[in-house]
């Protein structure tokens, strides 16, 4: 372990530059959160992740946000264990009927102001699972969604761009009030 720690003193960090916010996709994302509840949060955001029936693909990429390349904590983004600690709930999956109540209860447990970010194509409208007897079909059918990040699954950079847009928008609106 000493050797590995020693090496890390000399090696360049794995962490990469923050993705640019100037893409058109991000502008669209930022516009989508225009109606979100607003309050100064600084540059700190606690996220409670809820898998509402995904295939786990989105979770793998959300996990990747914590690896040394993306290192989301440097942006003040933090994944927390309890909805009581969260500003944002990040929801994946087409929302199965068996998970509907758990999602509602998690949402209710998050203090105001709160935002909901739906991640992945099936979180928008059920994606390829739409129409099944076991699926509600989209996160917005159950809780109000402030931002949708598309992809199957979205890459960590896409998720990061979405979250930064959310933060940026929140910070701007807080400054103007």
């Amino acid at each position: 372990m000493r050797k590995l720690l020693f090496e890390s003193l000399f090696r360049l960090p794995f962490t990469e530059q923050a993705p640019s916010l100037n893409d058109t996709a991000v502008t669209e994302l930022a516009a989508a959160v225009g109606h979100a509840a607003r309050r100064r949060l600084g540059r700190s955001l606690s996220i409670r992740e809820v898998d509402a029936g995904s295939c786990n693909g989105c979770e793998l990429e959300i996990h990747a946000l914590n690896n040394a390349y993306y290192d989301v904590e440097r942006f003040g983004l933090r994944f927390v264990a309890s909805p009581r600690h969260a500003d944002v709930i990040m929801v994946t999956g087409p929302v199965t009927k068996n998970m509907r109540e758990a999602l509602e209860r998690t949402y209710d447990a998050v203090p105001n102001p709160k935002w909901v970010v739906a991640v992945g194509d099936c979180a928008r409208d059920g994606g390829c699972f739409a129409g099944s007897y076991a699926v509600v079909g989209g996160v917005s059918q159950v809780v109000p969604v402030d931002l949708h990040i598309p992809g199957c699954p979205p890459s960590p950079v896409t998720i990061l761009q979405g979250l930064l847009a959310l933060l940026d928008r929140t910070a701007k609106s807080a400054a103007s009030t």
Partner: protein
Amino acid sequence: MPSLIDLMLEGRKVQQHGPWPRAIVDASVWTFAASELAHGRWSLLGLWGEPSMVHMSIMDEHTAEIATISLDCPDHSYPSVSKYHPPALRLERTVRDLFGLSAEGLPDTRPWLDHNRWGVRFPLGNRTIALPKASPYAFLPVEGDSLHQIAVGPVHAGIIEPGHFRFTASGETVVRLEQRLGYTHKGIEGLMTGANLERAAQLAGRVSGDSTVAYAFAFSRAAEAALELVVPDRAVWLRALVAELERLANHLGDIGAICNDASFALMHALCSVLRESVLRASHTAFGHRLMRDIVVPGGVTRDLDDEGKKAIQATLDNIRRRFPALVELYDNTASLQDRTVDTGVLKPALAKQYAAGGYVGRASGRSFDARRTLAYPPYDSLRFDVPVLNDGDVNARVWIRVREVEQSLLLIDQILDRLPEGPLGTHAGHRRETREGMAIVEGFRGDVLVWLRLRDGRVERCHMRDPSWFQWPLLEAAIEGNIVADFPLCNKSFNCSYSGQDI
């Protein structure tokens, strides 16, 4: 002792079912097979339903023979297999939930996937309206002095899939763990019905995100077996390449995550970097980090160019350079070993009884790997070892993963060296008649089974069985007598799929 072939001769053989035989049998043969399973002479590969028929797939591990037997159940009942052979229990509860077929003598009649929230009962059989009000799920009783219960989930504290765990503990020691799953049930087999091959392959690739290649591979092979398609060589080899990249990424992630559950974050950080490098190489080579929708019936959708090949080779070099130091770190850190050695022991007898696949089985003495035992191409012409250990603890499951990482590196080398030129696919054509096929493919977690029936170019019935079906119940057994704080370690070392078992 009769062989599986004798069993087939007892029944009426189904035509156009490949590559292994299927026969329609009567109840006495069905029950006989159940008792042979119970005596450990055969292994249960799967049990699934149709509106008025049940199927059971069986393997003889000594000869690697596989057969499927089917029983008509016009009165919607059949003799229970789990009455004799417990590994069938959750499968039979599921057949009841989805098709309304009841197993006579079923030892546990509680629903499994059906939480009474679908608004309909028996959604894939003769649908009826849902029960008026769901009664609370009756967890198994635990009695004794000073016992307390800990309820966890379905929403967990980490970024993981939903499921419910009910622990009963005496002080810190777990007396019983009972799982309740089904939260991610999406009705995929229902969506499959009537789908064309393209959509069905897409759905198969979304059963379990970490095994998207394995599922697409298994589905495609089953469809090709049904249609008697010959896949071009280059596609066959590229399939193995994406399958090994998927295995590599998942094992690297898991090794770090298991250590992280023992609060050894350094290992997690360094393994995550290696995992990420595999995903990036996959993206460069195949245009998708998890390699979704690459394997399709008839072949593959993306070719490997020089840039992709270089990216993969650079990643392999990087892993070869860095991984041995991590293995050494794991091996030499006493505080970490203190948590993993002798923790969550799965006894070899149980692994055998449940025909546990993947690292769960191989860490408990069960030497089964579909790549070698069933030797589907191109693995029949590749050199690799299947590591097996007997300790059955968390440590053994970590070591199996370590060894499999090394084997996957060797396999990818061979594939890149010998990748043949040629077309990437063959057209499925159009067959009006009914044809059936089955395939078993080794995913990173174990053997994925797909059985399907095609008619007029569409899926009439498709069943997909995740390896987790036979691993989840074993986690309940392995945790017993451990402390509550070691549950994350045990759980992560099994790393069963929720979405795959909930389907």
